[in-house]
């Protein structure tokens, strides 16, 4: 199971490289026709690998299109200046014109409109006016060490997916193990030899250790795989800069999130009569885990909103929320401390509560208790 993830990642990289190599031709050579009903569009007909050919009427252009002399053509209508509408005709079924073609037509129009009225260099600037370079400054006015950016969100995404995967795998194992032991009456033998607390703690720690090994394998294989990735992806990832404490926090939150879900799985396993029921229940709990991902874009543009503080401290959503927030903004220390404290307390609390109900429900084969019953038993415990 542990090795499957890196292997799948490897396969994906290989496949995507192959496919993009085939699907994207590196150089596009095309001939585009145009009909100038307005007048004044004669220059700049040769743009890199794309040539523009003038036709007198749309009819001529259509013929040429059908004959295959040109790939497509567009018509500049007489009212172009006021409407800006250009009609484009093509034989192919496309969602939109390719970026190269759009750029070419764009530049062709702009250059022709400005030709003679504005110097060459300015025409070039008008065609590509904005190349925005943002630098984040600290409160003292110095250049901040991390600059963030979209790339910084990729790592948190990957983190969240890895965490969700680990949790699903481990909770399945835990539930299945407990379900089997209940079915086989093994639970009686085990409880006649060890206490409920020892049993539960042992299971959670055991699963926890297994999960850590899993993560370690993934973490080690990740850089190796990234090196194999195409230069475009690899180069992109190398521009990502993350805070130095990110790694530490990522590890801490991974462990805590994992443990939290392990104890929740244990308690669900204790009250379900078989592993299938338990797995359905666990599914419900994974929703708050993944909620932060749904709000990614909101978080990117409004990082200061207090809603995110709630998600940070609420234990079920904390791991993913914190890691994602770290990618876009800085989290105040008090929030991190509170979040970690709540997580640790939740883990211990749930473990203790589970121990109390464990005995009562472990031996109730075949009957799943209602929520009210569970609460009642917790109190009398």
């Amino acid at each position, binding site marked *: 199971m542990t090795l499957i993830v890196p292997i799948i990642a490897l396969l994906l990289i290989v496949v995507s490289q192959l496919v993009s190599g085939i699907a994207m031709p590196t150089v596009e050579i095309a001939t585009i026709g145009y009909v100038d009903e307005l007048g004044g569009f004669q220059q700049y007909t040769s743009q890199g690998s794309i040539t523009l050919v003038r036709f007198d009427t749309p009819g001529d252009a259509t013929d040429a299109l059908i004959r295959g002399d040109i790939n497509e053509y567009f018509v500049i209508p007489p009212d172009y200046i006021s409407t800006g509408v250009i009609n484009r005709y093509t034989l192919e079924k496309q969602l939109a014109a390719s970026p190269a073609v759009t750029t070419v037509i764009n530049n062709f129009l702009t250059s022709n409109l400005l030709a003679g009225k504005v110097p060459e260099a300015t025409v070039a600037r008008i065609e590509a006016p904005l190349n925005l370079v943002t630098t984040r400054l600290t409160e003292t006015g110095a250049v901040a060490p991390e600059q963030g950016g979209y790339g910084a969100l990729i790592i948190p995404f990957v983190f969240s997916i890895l965490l969700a995967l680990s949790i699903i795998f481990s909770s399945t194992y835990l539930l299945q193990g407990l379900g089997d032991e209940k079915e*086989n009456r093994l639970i*009686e033998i085990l409880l006649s030899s*060890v206490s409920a607390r020892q049993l539960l703690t042992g299971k959670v720690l055991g699963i926890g250790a297994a999960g850590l090994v899993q993560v370690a394998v993934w973490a080690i294989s990740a850089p190796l795989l990234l090196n194999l990735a195409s230069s475009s992806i690899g180069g992109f990832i190398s521009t990502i800069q993350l805070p130095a404490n990110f790694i530490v926090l990522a590890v801490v939150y991974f462990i805590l999130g994992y443990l939290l879900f392990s104890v929740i799985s244990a308690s669900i396993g204790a009250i379900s009569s078989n592993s299938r029921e338990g797995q359905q229940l666990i599914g419900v709990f994974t929703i708050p885990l993944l909620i932060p991902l749904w709000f990614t874009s909101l978080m990117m543009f409004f990082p200061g909103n207090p809603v995110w503080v709630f998600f940070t401290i609420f234990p079920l959503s904390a791991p993913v929320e914190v890691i994602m927030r770290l990618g876009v903004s800085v989290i105040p220390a008090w929030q991190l401390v509170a979040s970690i404290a709540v997580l640790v307390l939740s883990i211990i609390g749930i473990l203790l509560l589970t121990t109390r109900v464990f005995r009562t429900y472990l031996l109730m084969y075949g009957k799943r208790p209602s929520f009210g019953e569970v609460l009642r038993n917790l109190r009398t415990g």
Partner: protein
Amino acid sequence: MLAVEVSHIVKSFVDKVVVNDLSFSVAQGEIFGLIGPNGAGKTTTIRMMMDIIKPDSGDVTILGEKLSESTKNKLGYLPEERGLYKKLKVIDSIIYLASLKGMDRHSAEEKANELLSQTGMLPHKGKRIEELSRGMGQIIQFIVSVIHDPELVVLDEPFAGLDPVNTDLLKGMLFDLKNQGKALILSTHQMNEIEELCDRILMINHGRSVLYGNLAEIKSKYRSNSVLLEFKGEMGEVPGVTEKRTHKGYLELVLDGNTTPQQILERLVSRGMVINRFEVATPPLNEIFLRVVGKAHE
């Protein structure tokens, strides 16, 4: 020191009282029978003795100590249904479960091999549990329950699924344990096993004690006035006999209240019958069971 002392234990689940003020004791070096109809509360009582569940009130004292994690290592438990990891190998299962009882790996392995060869299971030690037949699994279960040399062993339906050879083997091992001074509690529906093995018994019904004490004493208390007879010759009518019941290979004569077995014997001999077997009948435990439990249902 008593092996087990149970004092006024009560247990309810949700709103049903399953064990209702039960008290009994088991001495060391004795085989104690725990019997009762289905749903009587036997398994719950056993689980309370094994510290799998805790009583709502009352005490359980094992070997002079209140139940705790350390006393658990002195207990052996053979549950009613298979309690083994299906995918694990026989030898690994035994060693693992022994280690939970505080045995170190080395001695566990040694003792396991010893017990396996004693029961003739040594050739199967590398097999997975799921590959064993029901009877073989039962034997492995038994080994697990005694390997750590417990002072008290509780066996829930130990003979279920065993062929006569293995049943005999197991009985021999139980007697060995008894002679070593261990206390054994045997819970079963098979009355003939109880009669053969147990010294004292406890019968529970609806969570309460209905019969408790020395088996022989109980049987004599319930003795109906009957004699069992194997004979040659004609019997005819015998005064003092109210009923003749035919059983397989012998005849049961039910006597009226005024006649003693001695008188019947005299009368039979005086008729010139050849008596091959004459026995004062004590009812089988089965009958006592039905009588006691049947009364409760009336």
